[in-house]
């Protein structure tokens, strides 16, 4: 009953949507595509799929990337509410980073934050084990500017300024940065999810 040309048109569109749904689990993406296929067939009605009915349906559904974006944003919103642990938030942001510039930016900043926070905490924890290699050294450079280095160094140059203070400073500052990075990444995920609510207009 349906025009093969029209079927091809529909499947080509759905393939594009499917590509943009890659961040979703396969089962969810498949379900979303099946829903859309059924929707277009319902819209075409008893006459079956024709190039005209398919074109009208696809125009009404809109651009495949935006359509896929609705599903991704909805998932981000749900994740932000149900999975708040730092690694889950990071994993969810990672999945969305390929789709959204906002997510990519959030991922980058979060990665920097986690690395910085973990480095500071690692320095604090390693100090008792490697007291001469962990610290903050002031290294006067040739131009009389002061440059700093922090962390594990096999051949430290210049005076070390923190001593054992690096332990509480590293733990507190590192912990604070980790906490703030977690909140930042959670807020980023929520922002992505709110974008989905905006689309209902």
């Amino acid at each position, binding site marked *: 009953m349906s025009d093969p040309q029209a079927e091809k048109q529909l499947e080509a569109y759905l393939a594009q949507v499917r590509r943009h749904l890659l961040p979703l689990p396969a089962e969810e993406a498949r379900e979303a595509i099946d829903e859309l*296929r059924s*929707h277009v067939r319902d819209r075409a009605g008893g006459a079956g799929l024709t190039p005209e009915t398919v074109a009208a349906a696809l125009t009404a559904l809109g651009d495949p990337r935006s359509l896929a974006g609705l599903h991704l944003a909805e998932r981000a919103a*749900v994740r932000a509410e149900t999975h708040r642990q730092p690694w889950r938030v990071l994993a969810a942001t990672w999945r969305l980073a390929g789709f959204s510039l906002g997510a990519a930016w959030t991922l980058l900043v979060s990665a920097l934050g986690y690395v910085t926070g973990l480095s500071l905490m690692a320095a604090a924890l390693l100090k008792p084990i490697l007291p001469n290699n962990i610290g903050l050294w002031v290294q006067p450079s040739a131009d009389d500017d002061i440059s700093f280095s922090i962390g594990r160094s096999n051949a430290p140059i210049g005076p070390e300024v923190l001593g054992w203070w690096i332990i509480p400073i590293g733990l507190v500052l590192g912990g604070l940065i980790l906490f703030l990075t977690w909140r930042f990444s959670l807020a980023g995920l929520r922002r992505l999810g709110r974008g989905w609510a905006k689309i209902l207009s």
Partner: protein
Amino acid sequence: MSEADDDLVSLDRWTVQLRKGTLGLAVLASLWGGRLYGLEILRRLEADADLTVPEGTIYPLLNRLKRDGLISSEWVEAEGGHPRKYFTLTEAGRRRAAEMAQAWGRFAAGLDAMLTPMRQEQNR
């Protein structure tokens, strides 16, 4: 943009917010009488509530309601051969719809009371 255009834009924005706030209730209400599939829900919203929803947005919204446990879905073979996804209110969905409808009724009654003097003046 002229002042008139600005007014139109902010009225539009307000209307959009209003629709966003009530869309969930409208979808649950559409399912009160029995199961419907996606396109039927869209048409019911348009016909009964003058709510035009962009077609692509209905399915993520329905997924959200399903995740919240308010509706359930099942695929059914339709006449013509293609499978159709029907949505039904769950018990929790019926309770929530009733609660939301009550809250909406109270809110609308209160707002209507406030608007009466304004309407009377406009009708004079």
